[in-house]
């Protein structure tokens, strides 16, 4: 029997057979996450029902020296939940309870498998919602959001997952259940929760998450502005920010992205637009109205040839439909595509877009651009046809060149999709060896054996080693301290 067979037998005995998947065909359904061109069939899949089962699974893995990977809905776009062939995939899809909605405390407590949008649905009757809204919010899980520090269109104003999670029960990489934070703010000690959120499953597995609920805005107003060029749309965005307005969202799509969205969902954006901006303001009605007039005027002053103002929620949904479906929509105009995720300082937008255009032309591939213009988070979609020899390689090169541009302009290799498997190789371009080694100190504190999601985030495996401690007289032993 292999180590995995022994582990499977142990977990079957401890948790029950229905928690374990080790049929080859069934295992295949877990071979990738949202980044489907990396595929690894997991050695074993475990579907725990609760935190205790999750902790037992991790303890069994540690005892056997087997690596493990956590997976929520599997929508991640950086291969963060890519399984390990000789490891265990711990899937949280059976941990889907909304434990509590506490509007008086502006908090909800949920299990990690709960779908992002379901938190908002549970909170809305109380006048609240959960602010982080990744485009995949109808299917992505809160546990995955915590692992990736997910953003979304509205994080320009409201921040990211890390700003909306106040507590988590976590299975540490040695299989212990601990509480980080909770319902009250500012727990004493190191902000381990802050370090944990966005650690991509390398520091443990969240089994229960306390999130901040946000009061629903009194008013939401949404504007769709069509421009001849992305330069104009970029200038309008800059003007809005310069005027001291912080919209809830500023989203941009270029001509090719619009074409794809039209083909897929018939969103009816203004014909002939070289770029559209969706600008959304929310808040108290009097505030929104005052700023909305300002935003409209700034779009016009920067060359918008058509402005549409959503008359109601249905029209707003239509504006957003084109944007939120953009990734999938690209499938209508290209057989294959790569979704890139990079960040630049927002003011560099026009320049970087031109350089992306140049790179694309040089390589003979097309790039559709969709982005969170307000915070400079680019999502270029590099289009190619895998059936054409060499095209996939050229698309990869363009995708990599875009990341180099982001670094050159002082940005980041990822704004919200995470490093995962896909971008670990780019980390040394953004960080020095000392930077990475320092991050690794944190990893070693949590996971000295390196079993939690190995091979993700960091490009080269490093060993932790023992902590070199000099004995010092006069230092009390841990047990003596409160």
């Amino acid at each position, binding site marked *: 029997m292999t180590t995995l067979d022994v582990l499977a037998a142990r977990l079957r005995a401890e948790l029950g057979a229905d928690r374990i998947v080790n049929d080859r065909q069934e295992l295949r359904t877990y071979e990738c996450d949202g980044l489907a061109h990396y595929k690894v069939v997991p050695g074993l899949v475990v579907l725990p029902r609760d935190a205790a089962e999750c902790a037992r699974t991790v303890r069994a893995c540690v005892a056997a020296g087997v690596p493990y990977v956590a997976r929520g809905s599997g929508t991640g776009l950086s291969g963060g939940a890519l399984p390990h062939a000789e490891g265990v995939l711990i899937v949280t899809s059976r941990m889907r309870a909304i434990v509590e909605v506490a509007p008086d405390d502006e908090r909800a407590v949920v299990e990690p498998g709960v779908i992002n949008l379901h938190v908002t649905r549970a909170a809305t009757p109380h006048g609240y919602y959960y602010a982080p809204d990744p485009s995949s919010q109808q299917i992505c899980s809160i546990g995955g959001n915590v692992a990736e520090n997910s953003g979304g269109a509205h994080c320009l104003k409201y921040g990211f997952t890390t700003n909306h999670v106040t507590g988590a029960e976590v299975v540490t990489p040695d299989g212990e259940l*601990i509480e980080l934070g909770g319902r009250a703010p500012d727990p004493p*000690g190191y902000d381990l929760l802050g370090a944990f959120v966005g650690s991509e499953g390398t520091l443990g597995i969240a089994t229960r998450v306390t999130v901040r609920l946000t009061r629903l805005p009194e008013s939401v107003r949404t504007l769709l502005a069509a421009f001849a060029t992305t330069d104009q749309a970029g200038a309008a965005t800059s003007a809005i920010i310069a005027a001291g307005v912080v919209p809830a969202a500023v989203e941009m799509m270029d001509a090719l992205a619009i074409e794809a969205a039209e083909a897929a969902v018939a969103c009816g954006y203004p014909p002939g637009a070289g770029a559209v901006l969706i600008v959304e303001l929310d808040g108290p009605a009097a505030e929104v109205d005052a700023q909305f007039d300002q935003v409209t005027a700034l779009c016009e002053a920067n060359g918008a040839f058509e402005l549409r103002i959503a008359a109601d929620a249905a029209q707003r949904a239509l504006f957003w439909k084109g944007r939120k479906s953009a990734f999938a929509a690209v499938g209508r105009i290209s057989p294959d595509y790569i979704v890139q995720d990079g960040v630049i300082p927002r003011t560099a937008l026009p320049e970087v877009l031109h350089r992306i255009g140049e790179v694309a032309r040089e390589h003979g591939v097309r790039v559709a651009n969709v982005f969170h213009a307000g915070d400079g988070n680019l999502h270029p979609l590099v289009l190619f046809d895998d059936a054409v020899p060499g095209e996939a390689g050229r698309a990869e090169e363009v995708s990599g060149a875009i990341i180099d541009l982001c670094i050159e302009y002082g940005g980041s290799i990822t704004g919200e999709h995470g490093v995962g498997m896909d971008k670990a190789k780019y980390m040394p371009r953004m960080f020095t060896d000392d930077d990475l080694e320092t991050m690794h100190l944190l990893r070693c504190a949590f996971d000295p054996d390196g079993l939690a999601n190995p091979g993700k985030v960091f490009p080269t495996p490093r060993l932790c080693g023992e902590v070199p401690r000099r004995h010092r007289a006069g230092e009390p032993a841990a047990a003596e301290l409160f």
Partner: protein
Amino acid sequence: MWTTAGAQDTVAGVPARFVAAPASTEEAAAVLAAAARDDLAVVVRGGGTKLDWGVPPRRLDLIVDTRRLTGVVEHAAGDLITVVRAGTPLAALDLPGQQLALDSPLPGATVGGTVAVNTSGPRRMLYGTARDLLIGVTVVRPDGRVAHSGGKVVKNVAGYDLGKLFTGAYGTLGLVTECAFRLHPVPPVAAIVRRTAPADRIGALLAAVRAEQAVPSAVELDAPAEGEVTLAVLVEGTAAGVRDRAARLEKVLGGPATDEFPPWWGRYPWDSVGMKLTVPLSRVPDLLGLGAAVRGSAGTGVLYADVPVASAPAVVERLRAAAVRAGGHAVVLTAPPAVREVVDMWGPVAGLALMRRVKDRFDPEHRFAPGRFVGGI
């Protein structure tokens, strides 16, 4: 590299032997590498406004003073970010039309000290605290090596967010030399709506303010040890917006709107023994009438207490019991030596074993602010 310490170079009563004041990250790295070689215990000092906080260091050789580590490295107004050296006083930041939305409850506090202790004030309700606004950090580790995490863009998930780890770490993991922050525009107009009411009305008034969709920047509470409690709600925005929102809050609170901040706004309430109490929002009223004046952000569940010295141990325990029962925390931030000897400064800390492991990795020789932090870290 360092000079002999003077009589004023003490930390919570513990005298240092040397003082260094590096003017750059490189100089700081050289100082800390030398300190590592010589096995010196180090405490970082910024404006010195919170040196009496926490527990006195178990040992102290070298104070690293950040007073020469100052200035704005970059202010990219169009990108709403700034990069600032750690020794820069918060009050000295000049960012035309924009602000680093961090309140400074203690005048003279530096950027680095604010990050190291994660102090906050009224406007944390809208803008968050240092941990939310910090987007990138440069640190010098106890072994003298320089490391960065984050960057200069607001949206960035590449690598671990070490900024969060260093925020509120009381200088026990290394020296922060540079911080990149997200900025906000300065709102053109502000108004404060006030109401003074008996303590038993406060819960209902706070709930009414929460229910109103007025998006306050701050909801502050000021409660003397006995007697009526004052609430003050800050709204910021456009002239038309603020007028409307303030009028609605006047109705909800039954008190007047003015453009004048109360004198106690954003100031800690204590004379000698100061506590920080945090609770879930609905439990804020639990902290009233327990024998201490309290003040702070009722809108986020973060209050500060002025504990009478004479009854300190009993009142500390009473406040702590109330906070813990509500699911919160109670930390004694500062107290005279006599009180420190008889109270637990930090109270219960969850995750302490893991925190020790973090400390052991970053500062294996326990030379940085030894003993100042939770659990003797």
